């Protein structure tokens, strides 16, 4: 009897839960659960220009106090001393002007006056020095780029305040391209009051940008509000909420349902989904050059790719435009240059593809035999499978049989380090527009990627050119060295480039000013279309 009573109680509880469920769920009443932003006052004939704009990205764009930068540059909360224009050339931001000493070891920066941080404190030389002091404490990891003084300011000997609006940096070696290292993340400036003794943020970061963060709910959203005391033109939107929606399909559905009005950041929208929006007048796409380049690495420490002719044959056997058109829906630019096309140092070379010549070269190396190699690709990127199948079909024509192996990226890199592979599909972002880092890492004998990816590349000429470039104070000499290195890369193929990526973003046509830039969008220009 007793157990029956208990059972009745249990059953009643279950039924009550079901009732609550159906009332809350099927009733469809949005109720007053929490302040859900009404993103789209579409039905209104006149749009409130101050209504909140909701966007979304795949990750936290403001990872918070423990991140070296607190938030990404694309939120326009903090500003750097030096930023870049559409061609990735350094241009003034918080530093109004600068000059380099004749020997290239001293850089003097003249700071913009009348700039205030969001907390009302003045931006001046003391603030810059405080930011340098903070950078010197330790390397700060970040979701974006490591905050490392040695990486952004190599060979820095000292930094000093000359007067209230002038700062001087002294280097032990000539640093003629230092400006490129300082672009955006290299010279982010925060109010000195927002750091603790370890250099971590003690709350929401305080910058000088056109937006300030008013709320940051980690992994959910960050709320931006226009900073009316901004030194330049104030932002057009009053508030912008940037949500975190990791899944691309969900982001796409949120965009189509009007829950969000635009997608931003890297991987904003896969090309396969973007093409579905083409022809839909409610949405638009915006594209620009990306700093990412996609390429194949070949294991140059072993036969057959230790022979330059085989690497040339692989490059010539590919049909890059077929890859970009059929796999990436045209969102990519074929290239054979190791350097990404977003830097002003980039030089255009014709993409040479000739199957007959490829067969000849491969035949010279293989002597009529066939060779089987392992082709590693990132299993998390669906498009790479189709791409690998295309590439392996072309390579089979020159005598290379590929065993396709999808892998998790970290494991793949470990396998490449051991040299236990033939071909691998990789990608590389350009951390700043100065290309020396890329050349050094891939093409110098001691380069870390050259070794870790088992590229086995060695060129005395490249080594000499890099030495010459690093000693050159004259930009023309440096540019000539870089031009030649790029040319060598298209002939000797330390890696086999496939294509330069495009940054692709989608937005609702209810917005204006939503233009893709080299790094994100220009958020201050985004507004409701009136």
């Amino acid at each position, binding site marked *: 009897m007793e*157990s*029956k009573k*208990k*059972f009745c109680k*249990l*059953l009643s509880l*279950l*039924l009550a*839960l*079901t009732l*609550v*469920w159906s009332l*809350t*769920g099927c009733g*469809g009443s*949005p*109720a007053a*659960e*929490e302040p*859900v932003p009404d993103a789209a006052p579409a039905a209104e004939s006149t749009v409130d220009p101050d209504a909140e704009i909701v966007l979304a990205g795949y990750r936290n764009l403001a*990872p*918070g106090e*423990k*991140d070296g930068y607190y938030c990404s540059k694309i939120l326009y909360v903090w500003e750097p001393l030096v930023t870049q224009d559409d061609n990735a050339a350094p241009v003034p931001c918080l530093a109004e002007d600068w000059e380099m000493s004749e020997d290239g070891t001293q850089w003097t920066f003249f700071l913009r006056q009348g700039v205030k941080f969001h907390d009302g404190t003045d931006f001046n030389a003391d603030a810059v020095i405080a930011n340098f002091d903070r950078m010197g404490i*330790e*390397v700060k*990891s*970040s*979701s*974006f*780029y*490591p905050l*490392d003084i*040695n*990486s952004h300011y190599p060979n820095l000997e000292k930094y000093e305040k000359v007067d209230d609006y002038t700062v001087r940096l002294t280097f032990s070696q000539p640093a003629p391209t230092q400006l490129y290292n300082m672009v955006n993340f290299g010279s982010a400036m925060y109010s000195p009051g927002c750091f603790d003794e370890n250099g971590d943020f003690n709350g929401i970061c305080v910058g000088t940008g056109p937006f300030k963060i008013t709320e940051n709910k*980690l*992994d*959910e959203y960050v709320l931006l509000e226009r900073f009316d005391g901004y030194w330049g033109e104030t932002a057009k939107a009053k508030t912008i909420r940037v*949500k*975190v*929606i*990791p*899944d691309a*399909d*969900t982001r796409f*559905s*949120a965009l189509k*349902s009007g*829950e969000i009005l635009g997608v931003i950041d*890297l991987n904003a929208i896969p090309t396969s989904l973007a093409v579905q929006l083409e022809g839909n007048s409610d949405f638009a796409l915006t594209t620009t050059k990306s700093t990412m380049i996609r390429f194949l690495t070949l294991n140059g420490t072993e036969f057959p790719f230790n022979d330059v002719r085989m690497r040339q044959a692989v490059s010539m056997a590919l049909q890059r435009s077929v890859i970009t058109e059929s796999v990436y829906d045209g969102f990519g630019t074929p290239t054979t240059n190791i350097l990404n096309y977003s830097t002003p140092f980039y030089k255009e070379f014709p993409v040479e593809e000739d199957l007959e010549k490829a067969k000849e070269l491969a035949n010279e190396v293989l002597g009529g035999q066939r060779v089987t190699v392992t082709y590693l690709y990132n299993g998390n990127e669906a498009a790479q499978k189709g791409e690998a199948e295309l590439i392996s079909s072309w390579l089979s024509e020159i005598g290379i049989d590929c065993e396709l192996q999808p892998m998790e990226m*970290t*494991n793949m*890199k*470990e*396998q490449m380090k051991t040299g236990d592979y033939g071909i691998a599909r990789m*990608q590389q*972002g350009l*951390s700043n527009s100065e290309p020396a880092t890329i050349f050094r*890492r891939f093409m110098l004998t001691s380069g*870390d990627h050259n070794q870790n990816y088992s590229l086995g590349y060695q060129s005395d000429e490249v080594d000499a050119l890099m030495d010459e470039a690093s000693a050159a104070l004259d930009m023309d000499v440096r540019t000539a060295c870089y031009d030649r290195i790029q040319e060598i890369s298209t002939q000797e193929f330390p890696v086999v480039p496939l294509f330069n990526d495009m940054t692709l973003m989608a937005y609702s046509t209810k917005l204006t000013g939503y233009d893709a830039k080299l790094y994100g969008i220009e958020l201050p220009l985004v507004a409701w279309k009136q």
Partner: protein
Amino acid sequence: MGRYLIHKLASLVPVLLGISLAAFVLGVLSLGDPAELALSQGGYEPTQEQIQAMAHQMGLDAPYPVQYLRWVGRALTGDLGDSYSSRMPVAQELGRRLPVTLKLAVCAMALACAGGLLLGCTAAAFRGRWPDRLIQAVLNLQLSIPAFWLALLLILLFAETLGWLPTSGNGGLRYMILPASVLSSATMATAARLTRSSLLAELGRQYCTAASARGIGRWRLVLRNALPNAIVPVVALLGNSLGGMLGGSVIVESIFALPGIGSYALEAINNRDYPALQGYVLLTGAVYVAITLLVDILSMLLDPKVRLGGRKI
């Protein structure tokens, strides 16, 4: 009863130590350098010098046993260490995310209980007739549709097309409907099938035949007479599923942009974030053991045979 509980609680310690050690060993055995991964987010590739400096900063240059013992020592004081990738205290991160996962799991469990029992009872009551066959077909569908696909279909229908529900995000119950439906789908189907088969076994017993012969209605027979005896294995199944829902909601959390512990574990695995992973394993292990304990207690309350441990009255 008291001794039983003490025994269960005492067994928690070696279990948790064992799983934390297993998590640590698996982390160490897996390829990938945490220092490199901590620096290489957002497509950036760190240099060898940066990696070495970061490894030292993270204490990765100490021998593995030292690293493990350090962690256990701190864990005893409630400090689960700092995440390698976000540098936030793991305990704090788990504390922040656990309520989201709990909310999702409780909602999913409510759905699974209600749906499972309702469907199971209906199928048993109409055994062999069309409602039974229809329910069986639905349950087979629920069991065979992959969670991620079901999630995308539901988003497409209820959020994108009909606009009734939000696509994703963390909020009130309205935000939980789609993810909880996905998370509960397979469990609901399993519970319904188990309920049906247990009920059918009970309905075949003499007391049910006798009750039926005395003219008791079909629903009354199922709900009042057979179900109390048939429900014990279903409760055990649902209880164990709750543990799975708490720990295994990775895909659902990721698709529906819910910042719970499942998505945290996924990030931790990708980043070789050992402290985060160990914290996750420890937490889900503890919760799992606690739930098993609760299910045992509930079974004792529901079933006198379990309570008496086989002793005769």
